[in-house]
C-alpha cells in the first residue's frame, strides 16, 4: 500500500517537474536560467526515485518497508488507533479544513468566526450549546477587538455580504460601539 502511494507520488512529481522544465524552455534566457538549473537535476532525481519505488514494487508484491522518520514529528503516544478510524478521522478533519476555508470566504472572519466554530463544536465535536456559543463569541471578540480595533487590521465581510450589497453583516451592531469609542 505504502509502495503504491510512493509510486503515485513519484509519478506525480515526475509529471509536475517535466511540465515545469517544458514550460521554462520557452522563456528568455535569464528567466529560465534558475528554473532549468533546478529543474533538470530535480527531474532526474524524481525519475530515479520513481524507478526505485517501481523496482521495490516489482521485487515484492507487499514489501515490508521501514517507515521513514520525520525529525520534527511527535513521538507516538497513547494506545495505537485502528487504521480505519485514523482514515475516517483524517477525512472528517480534512472536510472541516475545507468547510472553514469556504465558510470564511462566504461569511467573512467576524461572522464566520462565530458560525463555523459553533457548528464544528456543536455538531462534530459534540460540545454543549453553551460552550459552542461562548467559544464563537470569544472568536468574534478576537477578530473584532483584537484584529480590527487593536491592530487596525480590516477584515472583509465575505462574499455573501458583498453579493447582498452590504458593507458587513454586523456593522449595525459594531458601528455604534466604534462611534462610542471614538
Amino acid at each position, binding site marked *: 500500500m*505504502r509502495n503504491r*502511494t510512493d509510486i503515485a*507520488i513519484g509519478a506525480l*512529481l515526475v509529471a509536475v517537474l517535466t511540465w*515545469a522544465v517544458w514550460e521554462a524552455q520557452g*522563456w*528568455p534566457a*535569464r*528567466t529560465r*536560467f*534558475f*528554473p532549468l*538549473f*533546478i*529543474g533538470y537535476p*530535480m527531474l532526474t*532525481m*524524481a525519475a*530515479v*526515485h520513481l524507478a*526505485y519505488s517501481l523496482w521495490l514494487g516489482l521485487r515484492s508484491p507487499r514489501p515490508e518497508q*521501514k517507515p*521513514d*522518520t*520525520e*525529525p*520534527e*514529528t*511527535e*513521538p507516538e*503516544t497513547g494506545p495505537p*488507533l485502528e487504521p480505519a478510524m*485514523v482514515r475516517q*478521522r*483524517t477525512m*472528517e*478533519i*480534512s472536510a*472541516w*479544513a475545507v468547510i*472553514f*476555508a469556504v465558510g*470564511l*470566504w462566504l461569511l467573512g*472572519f467576524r461572522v464566520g*468566526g462565530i458560525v*463555523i*466554530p459553533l457548528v*464544528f*463544536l456543536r455538531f*462534530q*465535536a459534540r460540545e454543549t450549546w453553551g*460552550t459552542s456559543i461562548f*467559544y464563537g463569541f470569544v*472568536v468574534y471578540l*478576537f*477578530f473584532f477587538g483584537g*484584529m480590527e480595533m487593536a491592530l487596525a*487590521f480590516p*477584515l472583509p465581510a465575505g462574499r455573501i455580504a458583498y453579493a447582498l450589497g452590504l458593507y458587513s453583516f454586523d456593522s449595525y451592531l459594531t458601528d455604534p460601539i466604534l462611534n462610542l469609542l471614538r
Partner: protein
Amino acid sequence: MLEAFFDGLLRILDQTTFVLMLIGIVLGFVVGILPGIGSAGAVALMLPFIFSMDPVQAFAFLLGMYAVTGTTGDITSILFGVPGEVVSTATIIDGHPMAKKGEAGRALGAALMSSLVGAIVGAFSLAAAIPIVTPLVLSFKSPEFFSLAILGICFLAALSGDNRLKGVLAGGLGLTLSTVGLDYQENIERYTFGLVNLWEGLSLIAASVGLFAIPEIVELWVRGSAIATAKVGKLGGVLQGVKDTFIHIGITVRCSMIGTFFGLVPGVSGALSQWVSYAHAVQSAKDRSGFGKGDVRGVLGPGAANNSGIGAAMIPTIAFGVPGSATTAILLGAFIIQGLEPGPKMLTEHLDLTFSFVWIIVISNIITVGLCLLFLNQLAKITQIRGSLLIPALFMLIYLAGYAHTNSYFAMTTTLAFGVMGVVMVNHGWPRPPLVLGLVLGPLVERNLFISYEIYGLGFLVRPIVMVTFGIALVVLFLPGLQDWMAKRAKPKEDPGAEPD
C-alpha cells in the same frame, strides 16, 4: 561591538517590544506545554502578526515564543510521560519516574533551572561567536552564499531518515515552487497560470502555515482525546530541584556545552543533543544505578541541552542563512518578511538586532522559569484542555495567517493546498523542513547563482570554499548511506549469535 551588545538590551527593554516579548512568551508557554503543537507550526502561525512590527519587536515576539517552548515542554514530559516538544523526549526517562515516586516538583524545578542555565550558555555562545564569525562571513561572495544555501537544504534533507533522496527532492521542490511569480529580472510570468494573485509568488506564510499547522490539526483530531488524560496532583519539592541544578552544576554546564555544539551544526536535531547529554550524564556519574528509575541528574542533562541549542542554532541562521531546523527555517522566513537578509549585514549594519536575539533568549527564559516556578500547579492543568476545543481556534488562525499576508482570500487556497501537501508528506515519510527552506531560500539562491554565473562563469563552482561546501553537502547526504551499505556487507561475516552492542 560592546556598544551594540548593550544597544541590543536597550532595544528589548523598550515598552512595546517588551510587551510583545511577553505575549510571545505566553504563547510559547502554551505551545510548549501542549503536546501536539510544535514550535515550528506555532511560529509559522504567528508570522502574519509581525507585519506591523519593527524587526526587534518581531523577533522579540517570535524568538521569545520559540525560546521557551523547550523549557515548558519538559513539564508534560515529567508529569505525564508525554513530551510537549520533540526536544523534551529524553527528559521522560528520569523525569517521569521521579513524578511517579512523588518527586514531580523536584524534577520540574531541576528541569526548569537547568533549562535556564542552558539558555544562558547558548545565548552567550551566540554573542561570543559574532566576533569570530564576522570576518569569515564578510569574506564570502555570491558563490559562497549560493553554495551555503544548497548546503543548508542538504543538511535538512539529511535528516529525512532512511530516504535522503526524498529530502533532497522536497528541498528541490521548494526551490522550484519559489520560482512561481514574476521573474524579478525580466518581469515575465513563471508558472502563474495567468493568475494575477500569483504574480508576487506563493505566500511564504500561507505555505508554511499550511505545511506545518494543518497536519498538526489532523493529528490532534485523529488522536481524539484530551491532551493529557492523567490527573495532576499537588507539586512539591520544587526548590530542591533548583538546588540540585547547582549541586550538579558540572553536569548542567557540560550538557549545556553539548547542546550548544549540536545547535551550531545545522541539521542536527535538538532531540539528538538531548540524548547525547543524557548519555553524558549517565557516563559521567559514579553511581549509575538510579538512572532510568528517577535520578535527578538524568533530568538536568537533557534539560540544559535542549535550551542551549536555541541560541547556538541562531549562529548559522543569522551568519550564513543556513537554518538547522524547521523552526529556524521559518524564522528565516521572518527575516525575509522584515526585509532583512541573513549574512554580512546582520553582523555589521544590524549588529544591535543580532545582539538583541541574545537578550531575548536570556530574558524570555528567565521570565519563563520564574513564571513556571510560581504557577506550576495551575500550568499543569492546561494540559487537560480537550483537543477538539483547540481545533477551531487553530483553523481560524491558519486562515487568518494566510489572508493577512496578502489581504486576499487566494492565499487561503495556498494554505489549504500546502496543508494537503503537508498531510501527504507526513503520512508518507516526506520531510517538510527542506521544502519550506527551499521556498524561503529560493529567491536568494537564484540571485546569488545568477550573480555568480554573470561574474565568474562556471568558474564559481571551483572556488575553494564552494568546493569545500559542496564536498560537505555530499558527505552529509551520502556518508550515512555508505555506512549502512558497508555495515550490511560486513554483517554476514559477524557471529550471528553475538549480542548487539
